[in-house]
Structure formats: C-alpha cells, structure tokens
C-alpha cells in the first residue's frame, strides 16, 4: 500500500519531483562535465608527456659540441641527452609561412607521436611535419616541401605527420596568444639533411631527460657548472608550451570552479527548499499514518526514500552524461589549438564523492524536515497548520501602509510568511542574471583585449624579427627603407633583496610604434631615468614605485641597479620596460632585435637578415578566430544560466502557487476574475525579479572581474570590461525568463477547480 502512496505522491507533486530531479541532474551534470574536462586535460597532458618522454631540462646555447653533450650525459641523474638545431625559415608551398626547422640526431627525448608515416630515423631522408599544420594546409605523406632557410632552398619529401610533446603550445610569437596552425608550424629533419652538412650543424639546444623530478634543481646546477656556453637552463615549469597548458588548466579551474560552484549551490538550495515544502505539505498524511500506528522510523524512511531515489537517478545520469556532453566537447574545443594526440574525459572519485554528497544532503534534509513533523503528536498534525503569528503577520494599517491596496498588503504578508522561499527566489534569479552578464562580460573583455593589445599597444602594421647575428648592412638596409623604429628584448635575472627572478626587459626605441598604458589604460610616455614594471609583475614580486632592483643580462656577470619610476599595464606579458636613452646612460650596448614599420610589407617575400615578418592584421584575425571557439563556450554558459533561471523561478512559482490554491479558489468564489488574481499573484514575482536584477548586475560584473583579475595565470592581466549592452542582455534576459514563467503560472489560475479546491481545507 505504501508503495502505491509513493507513486501517487510523485504523480500529484510531479512538478516538485521534476524540479528535484532536474536540479540534482543539472548540478551534477555541469559539475562532472567540467571536472572531467579539467581532469581530462591534466591526465591527458601527463600521459602524453610520460609516454613520449618530454625533456625535463632545456639547455639553450649557441654552439653545443659533442663533448658538451657527453659531459651532460655523464652527469649523475641524467638518463639521456640529445642535441637539437632549431632555426627559423619558411616553406614555399605554404603562403606567407614561417617554419620552425629542427635538425636532430636521435629522437629518444620528446619522441614523435606519429600520426601517419614512419618513425624518426637518422638515416632516413625526408621531413616530419607538424600534423596540425599539415592538415590546415592539406599536406600528406609523399608530398614534397620546398624548404627555405638562410636564403637557400631544398626539397624534401614528407615521410611523417607527427606531434611532438614539446610543441603542445607553439605560437609563432608571444603576440599570437592563440595559434591558428595556418601560416606557422614546425618540421623535423635528420641532421644528415642539414644544408651545410651534418658536421657544420651548430646545435643551439640540448634536451635532457632526468631520472627523478626531485633531482632537477641539482642537475641544473651541475649543468651550469660543466657548460660554460649555456645561455639559459630551464625546466618544465618555465617552458612556454608546458606552462601555457598548465595555465589553461589553472585558469579553467578557477572560472569553471566559480560557475559550477554557483550552479551546484543554487541547485542544492532549490532541492532543499522543495523537499522541505513537500514534506510540510504532507503533514496531514504523516498524522494519519501515525494515528494508524506506523512507527516514526518507517514513516521517515518512506519520505527519505523519495529524496534518495530521485536524486540517485538524477545523480547517476548527471555523472554519465556530463562528461560525454560537456566534458568531451570542451576537450575537443581546446584540441583545436593545443597540439595533442587526444584528450579523454576523466571521471575521478572526487566527482562521485560530490554526487554522493549531494544525494546524502537531499536525503538528510528530507529526514530532518520530516523528523520535525514526526516529533509532534498525531492529533496536532491532523489539525490545520496555522501560519505563525507574531512577526509574520505584519500589521499594515498605520502610516503609509494604510494606503496600500489589498494586493500589495497581501503580497507583503505572503513574502513575510515564506521568507525562505522568497530569499531562494532572489538568489536564483540574481544568479541567473549575474551568470548571463558575466558570460557576456567575458566576451566583452576578450574583444577588449584585442583592442588593447593589438590596437593600443601595437601601433605598427608590421613587425620584423631580426635574425641572430644579422649584418650591419642588412640592418641598415631595413631601417633606411622602413624607418629606424626598433626594440631589443634582454633576457635578464633581477634581484630585489634576496629574491631572484628570470624575466625580460624590453628596450624601447620604437618612436611611438610601441605604446604603453598606465593602470587606467591611459597612454604612458616613458621617461628616461629608470625602469617601468607591469602592474601584475609588481604585485607578484612585491615591487613598488621608487624601489631599486638590481639585474644582469643572462650570460653576463655585470650587475646594474635601476629605480622603478612607474607601473605600466599589459594584458599578456609581465615584464620590465626601459627606453634606449636610459640603456645608453648606463653604458650598455643596444642591439635591436625587432624593427617596426607602418609600410606595407605584404609583397615582401624575403628580407635579408630577418627571421620573420608579422602582420598585425593577421595576428588580429588569428585571435578573432580563436574567440569564436570561446564564444561557443560562453553561449553554453548563458544557455545553462537561462535554464537554471527558468527552473528556479518556475519551481518557486509552482510552490507558492500550490500553497495559495485554496486562497485563489476563495477569491474566485468571491467573484475575482482570473486576470485580476493573476495580477495579484505576479506582483510578488515582479518585485523579486526587480530586486534580483539590481543585485545581479553588480554581481555579474564582479564575477567577470574576479575571473580576469584574480584567477588568471601570473602573466595575464586583463581588465574585466562589461559593456552596457551586456548588462542589458542580462537584465532583459532575466526579465523575459521571469515573465514567461509568470505568464505560464497565471494561466494555471484558470484551471483551479473551485469546488474541488475548497472541499479540502489545506
């Protein structure tokens, strides 16, 4: 019999049960989807690095000999070491291309993941090419590439389409935050194919594999001691490719944490209130069961089973579908710009634990709410539950309250009677509004980033990266045709008190083609008597204006002292800036490595002494195409926010509607037209929506602010920007959601059957 009651109860309280199911499902779905995505990224990268033996240490230099290599190999804790010659060139088959050309002797470290073709073999002729690049340019095994390097060209057949674990993130330059894999990629060849002969190869990298992570620091020191000619020795934590991917995970962790946390929180609140109401509504029935002689335990179990089974089904479904739908889609999206063989969602015990916790909370709340009822004697339960007196029944017949119409009074008192429901409603609608605004704010900020970095800071059309060791003649040729606007990047180590840090100094002699912004994003004129540090660097390294930092150029032992004379802001690069005049005043030689120009270089195929020519427009195009992917994610967030809003508003509406059916029926009997009752009923929800919008707008901004200012990686310093139109979307969206739900609910008033409603005095 009791089983029958369970089914009937579910049938008669369909919308509440559907709510609980949906809320638990959505909460778990989003949470597990997102965490399976984050964990999938983490595990996928780890697995890829392990299986393909990514190097632990990169040694950068200008000419590593066989002896250098042997010395490293003989060090303690070193498993293996390999030399690599990396140069920049281009491929004639691909329009406007820049190619990173690598010549290697063996491939036991950072082993290729071969997608098509053969494994690396020193004695094989031919070229192994970046699979993302190949795919974007329709290149296959067997095609012939014309490779251009140092004004020489040579043809090679493609023998392998590959991925390499040290090229997960591999942009052409730091300006290209999101690689497009169109005009830039990497290729590998056996050193035997080196145009000037294998014996003339000048290796500029040594890759080192170490037996245990614990020994990395020690080994780095050892290498520093044995190799005089090493310019830099870095490990994975400082490698751009590894670091950028880790940052992606870290950033993801914060902002998805914010979203899925809020989502779970709201979902749980809504489940808890619904369950609580449901049990309270069953007061009478609990009384009857008690009067019939059912044990408290048995009754409690009955009600707990409602919450338990429903949330169990919803939870399991959520854990299964979340990773498949949300997680894998997100992973596939990031695989369009990070080069990895595959990324699979990972569902960890944490996800199961969170789901189990949710089910537990639902069951406990159900138990607690029915325990309250069970404590009372059966006879009281059978009586009508009276609204609590005291504060709830506010007297509204004094002062301005007297002027309030009936419906205002009724609504104020109704809100006071069900404060929890009202607060829940405000929280739910506020979050919905805030999520929408935040999501649009993310888009605004990313668009704003393009304007800031690529239009404000980059005030040039073309940037020419000069080749290492360029001749005076080629330099003079370039600046005489395109203007003497240059800069140099110094790799330095700086020290403040006892803390040392590796960073770069940009020496500016670009005559306004590079611009700088202050903390309010106003343009900044650089003075010639000190250095500028970016705000985020100042924060992370605890630097103040007026502080003196000492620094030296990597590879040199001369230390200089400079005073910080100002902060500048930069969205993606946290470093130090000074003018050439200041550099001159310290007596350091200026060797520009970049030339900036506004002359149209689109027809220049080759320029002696240059490594790459970059067009600002194409950088912008690349970033914009990346933003398209981000937009998809943002749209999903907005979609989820709207569903969330609808479900919460509808759920609370239904709850309050059910509670008031009896009162509405009474009003109907008295001759109130349906429309009029609807108006009274909706009034409250309009208030709630209004308050929620007022709260949601600043909250939405703050969420976006938090994500960009606090949560992003150390080298990103974007300022959250939320356009007026985004606020409008959020506010209008919320209002529309609220009105649709209200409309549906007020139509329900028509369906109230007076005779039946009044028979049972609820």
């Amino acid at each position, binding site marked *: 019999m009791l089983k029958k009651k369970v089914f009937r109860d579910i049938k008669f309280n369909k919308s509440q049960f559907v709510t609980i199911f949906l809320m638990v499902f959505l909460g778990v779905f989003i949470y597990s989807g997102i965490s399976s995505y984050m964990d999938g990224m983490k595990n996928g990268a780890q697995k890829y690095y392990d299986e393909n033996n990514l190097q632990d240490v990169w040694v950068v230099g200008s000419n590593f000999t066989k002896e250098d290599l042997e010395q490293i190999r003989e060090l303690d804790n070193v498993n293996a070491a390999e030399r690599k010659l990396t140069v920049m060139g281009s491929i004639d088959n691909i329009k406007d291309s820049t190619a990173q050309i690598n010549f290697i002797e063996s491939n036991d470290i950072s082993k290729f993941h071969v997608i098509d073709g053969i494994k690396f073999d020193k004695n094989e002729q031919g070229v192994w090419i970046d699979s993302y690049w190949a795919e974007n340019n329709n290149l296959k095994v067997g095609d012939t590439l014309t490779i251009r390097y140092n004004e020489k060209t040579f043809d090679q057949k493609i023998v392998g389409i590959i991925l390499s674990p040290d090229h997960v993130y591999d942009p052409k330059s730091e300006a290209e935050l999101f690689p497009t894999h169109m005009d830039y990629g990497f290729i590998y060849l056996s050193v035997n194919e080196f145009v000037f002969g294998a014996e003339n190869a000048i290796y500029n990298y040594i890759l080192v594999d170490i037996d245990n992570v614990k020994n990395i620091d020690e080994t780095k020191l050892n290498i520093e001691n044995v190799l005089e000619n090493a310019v830099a020795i870095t490990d994975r934590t400082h490698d751009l490719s590894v670091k950028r991917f880790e940052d992606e995970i870290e950033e993801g962790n914060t902002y998805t944490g914010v979203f899925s946390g809020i989502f779970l929180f709201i979902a749980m609140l809504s489940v808890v209130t619904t369950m609580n109401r449901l049990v309270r509504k069953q007061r009478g029935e609990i009384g009857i069961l008690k009067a019939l002689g059912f044990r408290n335990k048995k009754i409690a179990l009955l009600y707990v089973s409602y919450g338990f089974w429903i949330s169990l089904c919803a939870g399991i479904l959520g854990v299964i579908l979340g990773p498949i739908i949300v997680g894998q889609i997100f992973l596939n999206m990031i695989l369009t710009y990070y080069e990895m063989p595959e990324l699979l969602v990972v569902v960890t015990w944490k996800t199961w634990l969170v789901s189990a916790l949710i089910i537990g909370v639902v069951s406990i709340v159900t138990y607690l709410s029915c325990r309250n009822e069970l404590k009372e004697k059966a006879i009281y339960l059978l009586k009508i539950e009276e609204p609590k007196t005291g504060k709830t029944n506010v007297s509204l017949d004094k002062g301005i309250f007297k002027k309030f119409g009936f419906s205002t009074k009724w609504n104020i008192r109704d809100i006071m009677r069900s404060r929890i429901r009202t607060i829940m409603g405000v929280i739910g609608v506020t979050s919905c509004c805030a999520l929408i605004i935040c999501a649009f704010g993310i888009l605004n900020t990313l668009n704003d980033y393009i304007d800031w970095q690529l239009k404000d800071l980059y005030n040039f059309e073309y940037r020419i990266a000069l080749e290492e060791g360029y001749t005076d003649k080629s330099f003079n040729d370039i600046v005489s045709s395109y203007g003497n606007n240059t800069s140099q990047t110094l790799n330095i180590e700086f020290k403040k008190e006892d803390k040392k840090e590796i960073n770069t100094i940009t020496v500016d002699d670009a005559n306004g083609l590079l611009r700088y912004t202050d903390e309010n994003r106003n343009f900044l004129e650089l003075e010639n008597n000190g250095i500028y540090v970016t705000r985020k660097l100042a924060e992370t390294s605890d630097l103040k204006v007026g502080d003196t930092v000492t620094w030296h150029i990597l590879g040199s032992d001369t230390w200089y002292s400079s005073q910080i004379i100002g902060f500048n802001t930069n969205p993606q690069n946290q470093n130090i800036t000074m003018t050439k005049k200041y550099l001159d005043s310290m007596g350091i030689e200026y060797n520009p490595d970049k030339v900036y120009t506004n002359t149209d270089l689109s027809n220049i195929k080759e320029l002696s002494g240059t490594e790459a020519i970059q067009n600002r427009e194409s950088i912008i195009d690349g970033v914009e195409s990346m933003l398209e992917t981000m937009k998809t994610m943002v749209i999903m967030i907005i979609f989820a926010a709207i569903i969330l809003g609808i479900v919460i508003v509808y759920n609370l509406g239904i709850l309050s509607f059910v509670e008031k059916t009896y009162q509405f029926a009474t009003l109907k009997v008295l001759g109130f037209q349906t429309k009029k009752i609807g108006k009274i009923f909706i009034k409250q929800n309009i208030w709630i929506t209004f308050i929620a919008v007022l709260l949601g707008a600043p909250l939405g901004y703050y969420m976006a602010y938090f994500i960009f200012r606090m949560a992003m990686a150390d080298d990103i310093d974007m300022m959250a920007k939320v356009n007026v139109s985004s606020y409008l979307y959020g506010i209008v969206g919320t209002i529309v959601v609220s009105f649709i739900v209200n409309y549906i609910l007020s139509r329900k008033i028509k369906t109230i059957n007076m005779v039946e409603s*009044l028979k049972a005095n609820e």
Partner: protein
Amino acid sequence: MRDIIELNTVSKIYKTGEKEYRALDNVSLKISKGEFVVILGPSGAGKSTLLNLIGGMDSVTSGKIIIDGKDISDYNEQQLTDFRAENIGFIFQFYNILPTLTVIENVELVKEVVKKQVDAKKALESVGLEEHLNKFPNQLSGGEQQRVSIARAISKNPKILLCDEPTGALDSKTGIEVLKLLKMQCSKSSGENTVIVVTHNALFAEIADTVIRVKNGRIESVTQNQNPKMVDEVTW
C-alpha cells in the same frame, strides 16, 4: 411571489476515467424570492453539487438554470465570475478566509470586485466582531472565523446567500448564533434576499420557509412550511 431560482431538468455528471457518475439527475426546481430554504439529504446525495450549480461555481452537464430571469447555464467563465461577484454570497463549512489578511481586510476584499457601496465595519458589527477588526484569522475561534465569512458574504447584501453546512464545524451554541444571523439576512431586507442552507441537521427544517429533500441526485420532496419557527423557539 416571483421565482428567483429556476432549475429545468438539470443533470450533473462526473466522469472518473471510464465511469460516469450522475450527481444530479434531471432535477427541476423553483425557489421564490425572499425565502429561507433548507436542503436536507444523506451524504453523497448531491446537495453541495446543487448549491454549487446555483452559485455559478460549476456548470451543468445538461438542463437550464435561470437566476433572477437570466439563464446562467451557458455563461462563460468570466460571465459566471461577474455573476457571482454581483449576486451570490457563499458560506462554507470551513471558513474560507484568507490567513494573511486581517478580519476587516477580509471583508473589505469584497470592494475589489463589487461596485456597490460596502461598509465592512457595519457588517462586522452586525455579526458582533467589532472588537476584533485588526486580528488575524488564526487569532480567532472557529465560530468567530465563521462569522467573518458571514460578514463578508452579507456585506454586499447579495440576492442569494448560499451556505453549505455553515454550522458543521461549530458547537451547537455557536451554531445557533450563526443560524440566527443567516435567518436575519433573509428577513431584514423586506423579502428581497434569498438564503439557502445545506445541512444534515433535520431540526433546521422547522425554521425554513421551504424544505427540499435530496436523495441519490434527485429531488425527493419539496415542502412548504406554513408556520416557520423563530430560531429561539426550536429546542436544539
């Protein structure tokens, strides 16, 4: 005397799934203006159904209902609502007052739907609640709550006052007070207002002008009472 209520072969059929149930079966009936009518009958006979149809709360399956010369059986929802607002007062066994409104606000509620002048205070005085105007329903006794709903019903001086077991939840002494109020509503306006009371208490028949007995969805008998007693004359 003119007939204020006329039922013409009225049937009400409830459908539950496949089964049909005739709650009222071909009922024809006339009630004159200004009468105090008592409807008696066993449980499930169809008394409430009858009352609800007269009050425009429900619609007939077949037949006609003419109230004050107007056929309400083919009114739509809105017309029925206005009809109730203008003509009908209801009193139920459970008092049907809004818990979040005070006593006086519960009565003033009527002003929202009726054009007539309504004096809530006077109505509450006439039921002896002048002391409790600003209390909330849960601060009143059952009898007092029922008197609020009577005050609300009579405050607009409806042509027809319909009462479904109005004393059902009250002790007999309070019940008698309530009954007096209902009887007064009938006599005060010089034979303009009709009161219909559904009850299980056969003693009510002694004070009625007309007694209608209902059984199995049919009218068993309609008796005119030549000398209706005053409420106080009956030994309860």
